[in-house]
């Protein structure tokens, strides 16, 4: 199988679904890419859980400020209109459901919307959860950005997660390199396919029964 769309294209695809004026948290790793594709003529306000709303892009070299970082501990900037706050206030903001969208990576997503993205559960691995569990339950819409298949070719969309859970029934939608899936009461619904991917092929790749919602909306 070839990957249908690249990571940047996927980031652009996700960015296109985020309405103007949204408050958004982009998880560490690939989701951070989404920021680069937010339309310049819109105001989408980025939250970083370490205490900043109105996060801007990385600073120029020489202007890196170690006091101004994102959740991935990378140097960032603050836009006009930004606000700083402490960690309890920042997570209250998430836990209270005030963010519109959160984009997260995943090891697995179940057809009921369970997310596993913090631990492989491998023996000897050093566990680290950070804000993952708070992010998973803390936005009105939780989008997952991931490859459909692992490097070994197994589906990351599953009936039930094998990996340790990050959150239960928390994912709204999964953006993969092959297709976009909504979590529905009937399980995964294919909302959009990329390239010449078909729902049949997705069923074969995932081994799941999928609802075909590509003609809707």
């Amino acid at each position, binding site marked *: 199988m070839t990957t249908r769309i690249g990571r940047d294209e996927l980031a652009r695809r996700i960015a296109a679904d985020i309405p103007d004026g949204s408050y958004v948290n982009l998880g560490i790793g690939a989701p951070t890419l989404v920021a680069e594709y937010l339309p310049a003529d819109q105001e989408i306000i980025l939250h*970083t*859980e*370490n*205490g*900043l709303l109105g996060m801007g892009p990385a600073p120029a*070299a*020489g*202007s*890196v*400020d*170690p*006091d*101004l*970082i994102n959740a991935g*501990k*990378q*140097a960032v900037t*603050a836009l006009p209109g930004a606000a*700083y*706050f*402490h*960690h*309890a206030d*920042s*997570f*209250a903001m*998430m*836990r209270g459901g005030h963010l519109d969208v959160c984009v997260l990576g995943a090891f697995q997503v179940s057809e009921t919307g*369970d997310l596993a993205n913090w631990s492989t559960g491998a023996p*000897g691995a*050093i*566990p*680290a*959860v*950070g*804000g*993952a*569990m*708070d992010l998973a*339950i*803390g936005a009105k819409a939780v989008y997952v950005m991931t490859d459909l298949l692992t490097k070994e070719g197994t589906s990351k969309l599953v009936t039930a997660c094998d990996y*340790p*859970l*990050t*959150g*239960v029934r928390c994912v709204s939608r999964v953006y993969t390199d092959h297709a976009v899936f909504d979590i529905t009461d009937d399980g995964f619904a294919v909302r959009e396919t990329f390239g010449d991917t078909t729902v049949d092929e997705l069923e074969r790749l995932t081994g799941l029964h999928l609802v075909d919602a590509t003609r809707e909306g």
Partner: protein
Amino acid sequence: MIDKTVATVADAVAGIPDGATVMIGGFGRAGQPVELIDALIAGGAGDLTIVSNNAGNGDTGLAALLAARRVRRIICSFPRQHDSWVFDGLYRAGEIELELVPQGNLAERIRAAGAGIGAFFSPTGVGTELAAGKEERVIEGRRYVLEYPIRADVALVSALRADRWGNLVYRETARNFGPVMASAATTTIVQVDEVVPLGALDPETVVTPGLYVDRVVAVGSRPWLDGGEFVGGVDVEGRPLETPEAAR
């Protein structure tokens, strides 16, 4: 007359006993009270329980405290980082205990300690192994787990400026855990870049009121600041950028 300022970092950390629970502010390196940690190492206290978001970066600050074998147990959300080799080694060797707490529960549990809340129902972590064994309850159709306060004997916090009453202002995302940790410890010890005269901090903008603070020590500007103004010239870890001359 109230004067919480002390002359040296050694004075600031004096009396922290073996076995103490010590909160250490900072998110990674941002807001980490490095000078106070160095003084804590020099002071010799051991068998500590540390409460901090991370478990140390590189070989300095909290990582140095761990390397000096002063820490029995750490309560944190994100120990594993690209530069957490000190913690990683101790953990793999079974020489440090870890209580892993989701970051928002960590912050809220520390706030709860400071705010006199006995316990609270959080939706974070429900149904995960980090909630295993915790009391669960459904409230208005949503699942929650009961979380208890985390308090400490000592909090070590880094802020930008203080006055002699201990009022604090922070800088940018270095604020992070400082305000809640300051409220949750029996003794709160703060390093600041600068102590300013009483009345110099606008009462509208004080983030940590002085009643949460016991000792303040001035340690001078961060390398990327000059009199509180950002001058840059460092990398994200605060190290000076190589100049073209130096790089040659």
